């Protein structure tokens, strides 16, 4: 099942490669069809997924390099399921969004995106560390081409910066993987890269901290955690719309997914030890990203910097090490994909009409494109985490989970809630409201049917998750609880902190059991 999921896009890429490049519409349709078939497969997985089960499901396993203990091993649990769904939902939309904006080398573009999808799905589904690493690095190559070939004027600089920066981080991770493998071989008596086996390995402390550091660096660059973020605005500004959408919606989640999938289970002691460091960096990112977004004049840079702020929330939730925090973090990964992916789609739609990304070149668009303005408003509000939209649930859970751990962190992070309103409404006003300032109002035709098709699924998801998030939360809760149990057993401290820390200060009296705390 999972193999099918990964290889449907590859199959599509092969078919596209075999077709003559002149048959343009056919190429696009096959690309879309391949990504849609992968989506259908993921829906099936979602439907068959057993919600209360914390372990890996749909496990597939085949020896790959038996002598080294490398295996082709796939599996899906509550932590990877949301991200797999996010990938399969966003990819068809990204492909569709490029139909009018990418007109040259359509064949190569379609192949790149399909291989990118396969790489991303592989990253989220791998249970073997070597396999994971292969997919992790494989993602870079098509993304490098997408930015470097179909990008803006400074695309070469941006693409090289993107690939060198992220490779620098992952090279160390590979070293750490091998070190862990050797440790595991010594302790377990068998040589394996199997994540499920390796997480039983208790790495002695100074080494664990070093390995944690190597993994964390690779993931933190990808997220990106402040101050490792400067490759992101450049990559976003230069990337074509579809590239930006996938980069923001899915690629960055590889880092935050890595936190939950590898850092927490493999290095629990170091995680607990360094959680304050990462939490503080996350908070700095939330505030810093918010303030810097406000000062941007380029819409794409603005949205890119807002990602730094939003992913700060995701990181904060992950290192809160509470069920609410992790659940919120996981949900917010999906939410950020939807809202920021949506924002980049919106920018792309505008760019197709004006060929400008500068706020100064816009104004009064709502008067010319009222339907577009309404859709844009909903996505902006989702990004602002307005109640009723998906973003609210994610941020609320992260804040509750963080508050349980360290109230001061939550208090500091809540500044991001105010900042997001400041820079997003500022952006919305500059683009949409005021007198018409666009240079060629005639070019501002109302959003087309195809463009609407890329946006409407996101709108539906925004409200569905906002009003009934449990369809996602209930599927990830068991895995999240199991993960935290693993961390607390391995660190053997009282973790996650019981909710009674504050209650301890309450003078003894009848504590009222409530339906809110009991199920």
């Amino acid at each position, binding site marked *: 099942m999972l193999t099918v999921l990964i290889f449907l896009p590859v199959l599509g890429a092969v078919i596209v490669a075999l077709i003559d490049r002149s048959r343009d519409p056919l190429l696009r349709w096959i690309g879309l069809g391949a990504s849609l078939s992968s989506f259908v497969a993921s829906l099936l997985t979602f439907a068959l997924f057993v919600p209360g089960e914390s372990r890996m499901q749909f496990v597939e396993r085949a020896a790959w390099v038996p002598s*080294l203990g490398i295996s082709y091993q796939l599996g899906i649990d509550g932590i990877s399921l949301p991200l797999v769904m996010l990938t399969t939902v966003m990819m068809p939309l990204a492909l569709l969004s490029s139909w009018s904006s990418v007109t040259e080398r359509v064949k190569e573009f379609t192949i790149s995106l399909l291989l990118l999808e396969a790489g991303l799905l592989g990253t989220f589904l791998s249970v073997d560390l070597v396999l994971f690493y292969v997919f992790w690095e494989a993602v870079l190559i098509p993304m*490098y081409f997408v930015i470097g070939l179909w990008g803006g004027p400074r695309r070469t600089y941006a693409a090289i910066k993107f690939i060198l*920066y992220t*490779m620098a981080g992952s090279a160390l991770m*590979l070293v750490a993987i*091998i*070190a862990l493998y*050797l440790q595991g071989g010594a302790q377990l008596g068998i040589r394996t890269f199997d994540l499920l086996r390796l997480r039983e390995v208790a790495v002695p402390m100074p080494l664990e901290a070093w390995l944690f550091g190597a993994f964390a660096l690779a993931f933190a660059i990808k997220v990106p955690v402040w*101050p490792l*973020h*400067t*490759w992101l605005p450049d990559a976003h500004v230069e990337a074509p719309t579809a590239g930006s959408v996938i980069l923001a919606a899915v690629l960055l989640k590889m880092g935050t997914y890595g936190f939950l999938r590898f850092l927490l289970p493999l290095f629990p002691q170091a995680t607990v030890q360094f959680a304050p460091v990462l939490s503080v960096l996350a908070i700095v990112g939330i505030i*810093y990203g918010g*303030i*810097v977004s406000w*000062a941007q004049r380029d819409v794409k840079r603005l949205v890119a*910097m807002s990602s730094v702020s939003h992913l700060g929330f995701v990181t904060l939730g992950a290192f809160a090490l509470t*069920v*609410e925090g992790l*659940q919120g973090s996981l949900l917010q990964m999906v939410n950020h994909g939807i809202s920021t992916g949506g924002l980049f789609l919106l920018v792309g739609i505008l760019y197709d009409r004006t060929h400008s990304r500068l706020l100064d070149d816009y104004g*009064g668009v*709502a008067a010319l494109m*009222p339907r577009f303005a309404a859709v844009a408003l909903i996505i902006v509000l989702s990004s602002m985490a*307005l*109640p*009723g939209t998906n973003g609210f649930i994610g941020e609320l*859970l992260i*804040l509750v*989970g963080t*508050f349980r751990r360290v*109230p001061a962190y*939550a208090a500091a992070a*809540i500044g991001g*809630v*105010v900042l997001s*309103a*400041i820079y997003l409404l*500022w952006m919305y*006003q500059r683009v*949409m*409201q*005021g007198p*018409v300032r666009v240079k060629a109002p005639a070019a501002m035709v109302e959003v087309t049917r195809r463009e609407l098709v890329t946006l409407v699924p996101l709108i539906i998801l925004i409200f569905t998750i906002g009003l*009934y*998030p*449990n369809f996602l*939360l*209930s599927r990830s809760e068991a895995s999240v609880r199991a993960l935290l149990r693993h961390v607390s057993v391995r660190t053997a401290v009282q973790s996650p902190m019981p*909710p009674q820390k*504050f209650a301890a*200060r*309450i*003078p003894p*009296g009848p*504590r*009222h059991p*409530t*339906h*809110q*705390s009991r199920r």
Partner: protein
Amino acid sequence: MPGSVSGLIVLFPLAGWLINGLAGGRLPARAAAMIGSASVGLAFVVSVVSILDPRVWQDGITTRLFTWIDAGEFTVEASLLMDPLSALMALLVSGVSFLIHVYSAGYMAGDPAQSRYFAYLNLFVASMLLLVLAGNLVVMFVGWELVGLCSYLLIGFWFERERAANAGRKAFVVNRIGDAGFLLGILLLAVTVNSLDFVNLSASAESIAVPVATAATLLLFVGATGKSAQLPLYVWLPDAMEGPTPVSALIHAATMVTAGVYMIARLQALFFRAEVTLSVIAAVGALTAFFAATVALVEHDLKRVLAYSTISQLGYMFLAMGVAAAPVGMFHLTTHAFFKALLFLAAGSVMHAMHDVIDMRRLGGLARPMRWTALGFLIGAAALAGFPLTSGFFSKDLILERAFAHAEGGLTLLLWIAGVLTAFVTALYITRAAILTFAPPPSHQDHPHEAPPTMTWPMAALAALALGGGILGAQAAGAPLLHALDAFFHVEESGAAKSVPALALTIVSATAALLGILAGFGLYRGRRDVSLGALGNLFRRQWFVEDLYEVVIVEPSKRLAHFLAGTVDLQIIDGTVNGVAAGFKRSSAALRRVQTGYVRNYAAVVLAGTVLLLGYWLTR
């Protein structure tokens, strides 16, 4: 079944929003107005029906719709609560909203974006009803932020105007600052008390530690100062007058801005645990009441006069909450909704007739051509001024009485003194506004016309309520509303606080009101511009509050943003990154030929190094 009834109250306007929002553009303009008004009218009818259920008056009816959020220990039910307090608010919100929807049909006739207008207005009513019917703090927060959204959308309804767009954004951002406090308060309660359900919170309030209760209530009150435009977060409300006038009447006078007061009433038991918070609320309320009244005295824009007046009257309500007189505060909330909505609608009628002129220096003499509007304004003004036997007289008098009763001499008596002074200034500024707008000489060239019946009838209904609403709390009439609220809040007779010279106090406050009206006539009769000297300057600059914010907050944060985005981000952080890269380039001068610039070569090197390391470890 009765459970789903409270759901229906929210659902009808929500349906109106959906219909107008999705199909509105294709419907005729009249249809948008009809759908909008009818959906709110239905909500009112259901509200009336629902209070016939006796259980509402006993323990209240809780409706659990579904489990909304469920993660770890944190569970939030989508639940609604219908009890006397929320019933009063639901009736008030849906009733006044209905009248204003009808009025809007006349006022907005001819606007090309009517369906958008009614869609927003319906969404507002649905959100506000959700806020008042919420069964727990998180659901209330949903309504709380959604009404803020609607306020933003409606203030900026004519978004082509930069001022309107700015005002809407300012309203949202300032409210978000308050909301951040509100949210932090919710987090604190969620983690410490483990329940956000109103019924549970009230029941378990006694067991909540005082420091926790104090911190939580102070944080929640920060939210209230934003939503209800109190010091220091009032700054968005005067600017909010950029929106259509019926919006000002509905959202920025009668309903949304009272949400902060309602929230405190809703969590009465929790606030009672926190003496400190109550004192802060009373002080902020009294100070805001006086401050805003003085600014209203010098404003030239009629709508801004009414906006400051609203801020001031909300201050009275918070004063009542702070002196632990929630029933009285809710009573004033009710009468204020009537008379302030009426005043705004009359002002809207003036704008309608005068082609959007609202500067009182360009108005005057409108009493003759606009008899009904003038009469409506006069009734509203009398109630606001606290003219004896109008609705505002009863409610304001009771607040002052309770403030006096609460005082233990010394500083606490200042609350009462501020209240009486404010009563005087209130009567003065509204008399000024009435004279400048309606008394001769006329300063208009064209021929203003009376508003159409769709606009005058809602005004007439509100005028009747503004005049007669006092019987809800008048002792002579049995004070039905106060009795119901007293029972709900478990307090003794609000109407007749013991050990106070009630009659003497009433005489004092009535005298203050009458003196204010007389002073208004003396000062402004026949004169348009009256300088109040240095004091007038202070008032005109709003006591320099906005200037202070500009210098201390807005400008520095803009500079900080540009400093971070330019110097720190591009030069320091990114400069370091590129510097590291450049450093590698220089130090590898010896290996220059490797530096081909082709990524494939770099990739090959990385791969080779990896293989070497791997080989080393395996063969070691």
